[in-house]
């Protein structure tokens, strides 16, 4: 199953709802392009919802890191929402949980942006 991506807005926060597999190839490119497009439009509060992501490979992890740095370098912030156990384990193994602000509740995550 390839990756699907949808965007929505809540209280000035752009939520990227991802589903499927974020892997080398189309999925990684699609995520990169979407982040660049959002940042270019000035949307710098980005919440990436991974609740329906079944699988991420090293390329997908790399794209999440690149997305984080792209948004941060533009003066914004990117947070992650609703990690599955597998994705959570991968972030633990790779120490990326120390990089990302990870939330498990959408309202709390949106409020965390609003507080800034």
């Amino acid at each position, binding site marked *: 199953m390839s990756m699907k991506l949808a965007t929505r807005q809540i209280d000035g926060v752009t939520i990227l709802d991802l589903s499927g597999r974020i892997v*080398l190839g189309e999925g990684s490119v699609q995520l990169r392009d979407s982040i660049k497009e959002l940042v270019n439009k000035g949307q710098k509060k980005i919440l990436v919802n991974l609740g329906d992501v079944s699988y991420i*490979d090293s390329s997908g992890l790399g794209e999440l*890191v690149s997305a984080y740095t792209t948004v941060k370098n533009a003066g914004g912030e990117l947070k992650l929402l609703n990690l599955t156990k597998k994705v959570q384990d991968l972030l633990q*193994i790779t120490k*990326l949980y*120390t*990089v990302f602000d990870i939330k498990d509740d959408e309202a709390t995550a949106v409020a965390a942006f609003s507080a800034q």
Partner: protein
Amino acid sequence: MTGRRITLTLASSLASVDRVEQTAEEMAQDAGLEEDARFGVTMAVREAAANAVFHGNEGDAARHITASFENNGRSLIFSVADQGKGLDPSTLPDPLAPENLLQGSGRGIFLIRSFMDEVHFKALHPGTEVTMIKHLNGAPTS
């Protein structure tokens, strides 16, 4: 299935990476690995195939990768070989080092080592073969 061995010679393409991953998944499932171990094994073999295609063979359609899959009853043994310039794994940066955490790449071999019980690299002249072993029932083969 004990004693089962499959060897695939494939083009340097993303479709080949998917094919190798799928074959590893089937082998892990047949061996009765639990979900977490199956996930790790499948990911490791996919990473090895992706490295072979895009780093080893540099995506060159004229070069092939060779992947083999074996269940000897004690272990699952996977190997992936490319026809590239060769790889010295000792020169790879540590992806967990603070200065590397924000790198957009460089985690593939680290993940392979994380999920497999044994990982061996062999220079082929040209190319590199990586062999990945997952012991069944947690028992070492020796």
